């Protein structure tokens, strides 16, 4: 029972990390209709910014705080310099161009930060474990990830539903031409949304960094999962991304946690573990396929799409 609770926590934690990455992706995709493969690169750059700034300032909190505006700025520069001319082109052109950005950022990171990779040492206060209940200590830092993820989800909800900027974002998502005709500066809105997406990606990257270390190419594998999340959730819907990220995180963790033990009852442990790994990675895609059959636009399709 304790193990089950612990695994649920693990799933929630992975889900929230995925949500941070997917939220930015779904905003950019849903509102700007831009397929941004380089979202994973922004995740990586966020982690590198945080690692370098943590080293310079000597504090993880300061480093993380400063990394966010840096990533926002980087996002704005990328949008203005590289992506602006792509909005009117079709998706394949966008895929090619943003794939080029991945190569650019990987090479740049290797040149600037070196091949060795970096770690972000956690402050003393976050290194330990918190005793949730007797017999269940849980790493403090993973709690912080859960807290930051939830806080971020709430503020995004507030931003999109309750503020003027959010209204513009929603207007842009449901009918771009009409919003433009009513005097909304669509170009500036796009720059803002892309910058926001970049900052969210960077936040995900820097939150993941103390767990997974900072590496060139660290955003590429997780980006595939983020795409699955936004497809399940409904493209353009932050709420959908939130629910889908939870589903994917939980399903992935539960599969990894319990399938090997079940299969060991039938075949030898190495084969069981190998098969369980394959099956649990498949579960997510099976979920995606099922959702697409029942609700082709995702669980919470954004209005107007």
């Amino acid at each position, binding site marked *: 029972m*304790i*193990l089950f609770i*612990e*695994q649920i926590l*693990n*799933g929630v*934690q*992975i889900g929230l990390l995925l949500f941070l990455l997917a939220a930015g992706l779904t905003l950019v995709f849903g509102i700007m209709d831009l397929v941004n493969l380089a979202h994973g690169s922004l995740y990586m750059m966020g982690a590198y910014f945080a690692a370098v700034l943590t080293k310079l300032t000597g504090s993880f909190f300061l480093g993380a705080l400063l990394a966010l505006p840096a990533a926002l700025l980087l996002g704005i520069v990328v949008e203005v310099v590289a992506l602006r001319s792509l909005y009117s082109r079709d998706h394949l052109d966008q895929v090619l161009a943003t794939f080029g950005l991945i190569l650019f950022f*990987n*090479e740049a990171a*290797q040149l600037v930060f070196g*091949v*060795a*990779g*970096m*770690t972000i*040492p*956690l402050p003393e206060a976050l*290194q*330990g*474990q918190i005793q949730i209940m007797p017999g269940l*200590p849980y*790493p403090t*830092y*993973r709690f912080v990830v859960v807290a930051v993820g939830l806080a971020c989800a709430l503020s995004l909800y507030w931003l999109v539903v309750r503020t003027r900027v959010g209204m513009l974002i929603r207007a842009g998502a449901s009918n771009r031409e009409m919003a433009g005709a009513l005097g909304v500066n669509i170009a500036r809105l796009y720059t803002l949304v892309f910058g926001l997406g970049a900052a969210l990606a960077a936040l995900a990257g820097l939150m*993941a960094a*103390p*767990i*997974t*270390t900072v*590496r*060139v*190419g*660290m955003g590429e*594998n*997780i980006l595939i999962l983020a795409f699955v999340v936004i497809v399940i959730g409904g493209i353009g819907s932050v709420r959908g991304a939130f629910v889908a990220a939870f589903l994917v995180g939980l399903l992935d*963790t539960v599969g*990894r*946690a319990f399938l*090997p*033990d079940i299969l*060991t009852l039938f075949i030898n*442990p*190495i084969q*069981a*573990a*190998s098969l*369980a*790994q*394959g099956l649990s*990675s498949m579960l997510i895609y099976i979920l995606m396929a099922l959702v697409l059959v029942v609700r082709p636009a995702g669980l919470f399709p954004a209005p107007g799409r």
Partner: protein
Amino acid sequence: MSLKTVLLAGSALLALGISPAYAQSEVKIGFITTLTGGNANIGQDMRDAVELALDHMGRKMAGKPVKVIYEDDDQKPEVGKQKAEKLVQSDKVDFVSGFIWSNVLLASAKPVTDAKVFLVNANAGATQFVGAQCNPYFFSTSWGNDQMPAAMGELMNQKGVARAYAITGNYAAGRDMVKGWQDAFKGQVVGTDLTKWPDQLDFSAEISKIRNSNAQGVFFFFPGAHGIQFITQYTQAGLKDKIPLYSVFAIDQLSMPLLKDNAVGVIQTGPWTADLPYAANQKFVTDFKKKFNKVPTFYAAQTYDAINLIASGVAGAKGDLKDKEAIRAAMKKANIQSVRGPFKLGPNQVPVLDIYQQVVEKAADGDYQQLTVSTVLKDSVSSAASACKMQ
């Protein structure tokens, strides 16, 4: 000269192939390793070792200049295979070396050995090539995947570990390793996990299972970046002091500076570390530090041996790169000054080697160094070797 004569002479040249004088004028080595992505630092270390080995031999083998063509496999089997085909077919190399990953080697070896080009493997230990699919054109300066884990199983028996958990990546080497360990470990295996390789970077679900098992030790194989991630997360979960880690290949001179204190206390079995007392090793380590300002890894050490093994083959054939039999005979003698001391190859053309227990210590200057504690297995041979029927 009439047009006819020119054409005749031209076709005669074509029939002969490329001018032999030119083809023989240099030794061409193709070197496939990982030079981009999260494990580019390993490939870089191997490339540095190639350059140092060449420096030490005056950049010549049997009087001929050596040209090395480096190729990046991106840690992907399909990329490695393309690069191997390119090296053999269009660069017409005489030797192919490198290879960190077993799955990349498994995909890339056939185009090389089928073309009767020597493949001198510097790390990947895929059991297929050590055993049943051994090949006259396949040499190695590393080991079979089962050997370090077998030594670790033996060491855990000696330390009285009764119940252990095993975890590794789900790919060719991972499955080989965990099987090698299981065959040697006499205690109870309370759990086995294979993680998605190389995508999975979060091990929270697996670590929770380990904590809730009654294991007294964890055997794990995560080379490169994954090793750092696993040990870091294991420490954050507060388990490192409760259930000791028994590692193969995770702790090296690239991971120690990032792991810092987290590396201390992890017990490892390995083929080499910088403190081995042989003269050739001291020279290698000293000059490597001088040239590249870092301590080499075992990847670099095995690469240094691989380049020297190639040189011994070229010398044995007196520089005649067409004389494959002479090259092979010379390489089989393994007459090199290895960084691992006395060096010999088994009938499968893979080293017979000693395996050591290694620990990490924090030195007075704050740096971390890996130390050899004891010899766990002497003259170790892969259990797959008996399946090799080659003469």
